[in-house]
């Protein structure tokens, strides 16, 4: 065990494996955070498409399109989507961008499908009487949504969105399929160059665990803030 530790120590600190680790950490963080932000935007747009009152053909078409989008992204594994974008779709249409950005796109588009379902559930969980009271006062659909329904919906979905973020964070470990150096890849490199697997992978697991615990604490904090602003 102690030789294993020494090997790891040497590789990590003296041979500058930590630089690799920092790059990996940065990529993992960028993909998870930007992916979630993009997912929130995409998810809110999708949920809006599905929930607008179906008064005209355009809205109905948008709603159908959103259904198809969600079915596609939820119906296929993230890795497959990643591979398709990286090796098939982007080369076919001549787009050549950084793999990290590709990963952000895929994670954002993918989590958008989940976020939209979460947002939809959150909005539906707000009593219809809230909307009716807003509309009865003469507020428009948009004003009622923004001022009354969404604030209550978001409070309801913070825990679920937090879970989505944690899932996303852990799933970033598949990006090495398109040659992005993330946390997992960084430790894989260390392990492969020393033929010593135990310590690198234990430290890898520990790294994810620490990240997830940090995020969990952050979510708790936000939840408590939201509850404090409106004791119910």
């Amino acid at each position, binding site marked *: 065990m102690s030789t294993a530790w020494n090997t790891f120590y040497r590789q990590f600190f003296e041979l500058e494996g930590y630089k690799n680790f920092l790059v990996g950490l940065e990529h993992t963080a960028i993909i998870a955070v930007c992916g979630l932000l993009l997912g929130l935007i995409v998810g809110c747009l999708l949920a809006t498409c599905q929930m607008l009152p179906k008064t005209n053909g355009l809205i109905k078409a948008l709603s159908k399109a959103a259904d198809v989008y969600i079915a596609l992204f939820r119906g296929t594994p993230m890795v497959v989507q990643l591979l398709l974008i990286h090796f098939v779709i982007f080369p076919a249409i001549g787009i050549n961008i950084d793999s990290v950005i590709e990963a952000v796109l895929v994670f954002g588009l993918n989590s958008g499908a989940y976020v939209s379902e979460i947002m939809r559930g959150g909005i539906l969980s707000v009593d219809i009487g809230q909307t009716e*009271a807003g509309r009865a*006062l003469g*507020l428009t659909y948009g004003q009622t949504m923004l*001022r*009354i329904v969404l604030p209550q919906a978001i409070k309801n979905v913070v825990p679920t969105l937090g879970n989505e973020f944690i899932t996303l964070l852990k799933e970033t470990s598949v990006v090495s399929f398109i040659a992005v150096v993330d946390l997992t890849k960084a430790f894989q490199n260390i392990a492969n160059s020393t033929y010593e697997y135990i310590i690198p992978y234990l430290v890898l697991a520990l790294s994810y665990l620490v990240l997830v615990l940090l995020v969990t604490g952050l979510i708790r904090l936000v939840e408590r803030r939201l509850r404090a602003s409106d004791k119910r």
Partner: protein
Amino acid sequence: MISVKNVYKNFGPKGEIKVLSGTSCEIKKGEQVVIIGPSGSGKSTMLRCMNLLEEPTYGEVWLGDSLLTPADPYLHPEVIMASKTFEKMKNADPDREDADIIAEIKAKDLLKKHEGKAYRAALKAIELESRIDINLARQRMGMVFQHFNLFNNLTVLQNMLLAPVKLKIMSKEEAEEKALALLERIGLLDKKDEYPSKLSGGQKQRVAIIRALVMNPEVILFDEPTSALDPEMVGEVLDLMKQLAEEGMTMVIVTHEMGFAREVADRVLFMADGVIAEEGPPEELFTNPQNPRLQQFLQKVL
């Protein structure tokens, strides 16, 4: 003030649940009208058609000179006369009276969606002249719900200020002054910064009533305002409503409080099976009911 003209309301994907079947009524300025009737008779639906929380399937709703619904061709003979169907029937038998043809078209529901240029122009003319944006109309009619529906994410004061300020009906200062005066009046000034969850049912409903009042509405619709309250809180809400009535507020009230109806109502409408089966001043309606359904109903509730 409010005219409901031959309103039908069907629910369900194919309109198979028929709730209102050709109801009409007229609410005059300064009048207090109470709607009674058995559960499921369509009282709420009728009230909610007045501010278009439910859109009537056929028929029209007017607020003063303003048409809130799409124009209903069957209520405007000149529209029917401009239709192809009318022309066709007229050509087939030039001697027939116009009124008879119109009656037949109405009875057989013969107007189709696309009835030709003249028909569409006639419809459009009516809508152009009278139809107004529903959001503007709703600013002029308050509504009070059975379950209060105070905005849970806003304080009492914010609840009262949101609509008048956001809709630029008055300045923030003006609205705040008015809201505070109303809160003072109902004795809840000290609750202005509380969230609705901290209020009792009676307090919630009184706040809901003054939330409607801040908007300076021309009429307030009440849908069973005391039905969700504990018995000891019914009085405070009815008292506030009585005060409004004395001040001459136009009110349409769906309620099961027969004592209140007797005391406050200028007119009582009895609904059964989606139509107004009988109406009249409360003394008459309660002491000398004609309709057997009403007699039955009163026996149960009085």
